[in-house]
């Protein structure tokens, strides 16, 4: 009898180990192997399709051409950085020499005005989209809370929100451009007009998902929690700070994530037309340039735009996980 039980327990332990291995294997398959397979299939379909598309700028770029352009974009960036360094060294030398001759000489500092590289343009795009998004958030979240708190305000503003929500950035852009040129007049501008135009367009388009989700979040707070606040006679600001905002944080974040992805999409279009030196302008300039490399460079930009958009969304998700008490709502 005892030997049988020993056998059984032995069996179960090996079975358990097998099960464990199976679980680990499944996890690796799901998180690594299958995405790789998907990407490989996509790449091969892409290269096959690319070979059979002939445009006036040559063959449609396949994955190889795009990778090649990536490295050449990087080389250009390094070369441009070296040029800039050399420029500033020459400038310093000249100023030092002049100071030696004349101690009262006020050194002139000129900015290097070389060509913006692809990587500079990525930075410009990120700065523009983040500032546009922040401006939108500063307006949209308080407005959404306000609308959520009062049914009357909600009825008053909701039609406006619903009408402006579907408007394309391309429709706003001419208006914004003209308004910015008319109002933003300064001899020594802090930021360029093209930056401001793109940023405001981004804000105008990314405002709405945040307003809508915040107001829904606020208006659907559990009535028991509102009763707690009433019994405690919390003053309005404490009520908003201690009850309303924490309770609607999950919905506010949903709105913010929607808005951020809208903002990133809008930005590329806005930069194309406003000539803000970012990724949108890069795509447009390459299109206008029309060299045999242009399509591959645009395709490289497409990949980068997609990848950055993905990273931005993941960043927001991480922020939500950090800030929100409701971890279950912070999922992909």
């Amino acid at each position, binding site marked *: 009898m005892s030997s049988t039980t020993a056998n059984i327990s032995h069996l179960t332990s090996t079975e358990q180990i097998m099960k464990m291995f199976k679980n680990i294997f499944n996890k690796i398959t799901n998180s690594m192997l299958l995405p790789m397979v998907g990407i490989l299939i996509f790449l091969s379909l892409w290269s096959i399709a690319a070979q059979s598309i002939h445009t006036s700028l040559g063959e449609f770029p396949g994955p190889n051409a795009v990778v090649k352009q990536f490295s050449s974009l990087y080389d250009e960036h390094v070369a441009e950085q070296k040029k800039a360094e050399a420029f500033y060294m020459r400038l310093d030398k000249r100023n030092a020499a002049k100071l030696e001759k004349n101690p009262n000489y006020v050194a002139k500092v000129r900015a290097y005005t070389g060509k913006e590289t692809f990587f500079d343009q990525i930075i410009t795009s990120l700065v523009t989209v983040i500032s546009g998004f922040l401006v939108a958030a500063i307006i949209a979240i308080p407005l959404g809370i306000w609308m959520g708190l009062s049914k009357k305000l909600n009825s008053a503003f909701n039609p406006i929100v619903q009408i402006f929500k579907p408007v394309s950035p391309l429709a706003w852009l001419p208006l914004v451009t003209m308004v910015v040129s008319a109002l933003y007049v300064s001899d020594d501008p802090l930021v360029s007009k093209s930056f401001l135009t793109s940023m405001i367009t981004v804000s105008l388009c990314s405002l709405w998902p945040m307003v809508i989700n915040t107001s829904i979040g606020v208006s659907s707070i*559990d009535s028991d929690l509102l*009763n707690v606040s*009433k019994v*405690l*006679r919390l003053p309005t600001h*404490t009520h908003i700070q*201690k009850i309303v905002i*924490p*309770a609607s*944080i999950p919905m506010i974040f949903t709105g913010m994530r929607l808005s951020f992805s809208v903002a990133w999409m809008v930005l590329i279009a806005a930069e194309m037309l406003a000539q803000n030196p970012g990724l949108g302008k890069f795509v447009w300039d390459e299109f206008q340039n029309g060299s045999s490399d242009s399509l591959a460079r645009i395709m490289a930009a497409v990949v980068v735009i997609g990848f950055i958009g993905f990273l931005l969304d993941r960043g927001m998700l991480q922020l939500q996980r950090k800030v929100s008490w409701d971890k279950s709502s912070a999922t992909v």
Partner: protein
Amino acid sequence: MNSVIEVNDTNKAFLNISQVDMVFPTPTGGFTALKNVNLQIKKGEFISLIGHSGCGKSTVLNIVAGLYQATKGGVLLQNKEVNEPGPERAVVFQNHSLLPWLTAYQNVELAVKQVFKNNMSKGEMKEWIEYNLKLVHMDHAMDKRPDEISGGMKQRVGIARALAMQPEVLLMDEPFGALDALTRAHMQDSLMEIQNELNNTVIMITHDVDEAVLLSDRIVMMTNGPEATIGEILDVKLERPRSRLSLAKDIEYNRLRSEVLTFLYEKQRKVENISSKAVAPNSVPRQRINHN
């Protein structure tokens, strides 16, 4: 003698629910939930409201809390009219309604900070919060959030939060309704222990006949709605402290229990049957047979 006179004089009752009607507007006209509800409560009295679902028990409680406004009549607390919610009438809600993003300690702290912001120092507040959590035996889990503790523990924290407001009247809306039977018994014992120490004025809604008899000084039985009102009031003169085990065989306890049961399942059922004429007269005995 004096105290007896005070009780009989409705103007001097600690809490006076006077001729309250409640009509809710509906698309097809007003729905009269309560009709002429009168109840006078002494200081330190433990009152249970019992009745079938939908009889308006919660409506009465919400009117006392100030969350609803009575259509007619009103509520006086120490001769002052109640017309808005306030911490002197703390509510323990049925589903705990703790703020899920705060720990047990912080949930009580929110109440204490609001109620005693002008007359307690920070140290005193901390002491007071911890005292109340200890009272409900939750001092070991002060830093846990609601989703990390059991249903019974959540309800304990809810009670601690209400007690920490030092209310004149404690209102409890089926506080143990969502708990399993064992936890409920445990919570009832805790509540009796707290009540023994603090002697609060309490109005508690319940569905549970045993709970009502065990805990109350008076059981207020409500008729079925619409136009619900107080049907009977039962005095519970069992000696305190009460123990559920020794009471189980107590003659008086069992008499009270059967009176409540009779009210709920005979008198109120009869009213229902008479009002709905579709039921044939001989169906009443048949139902009884089914129950046996």
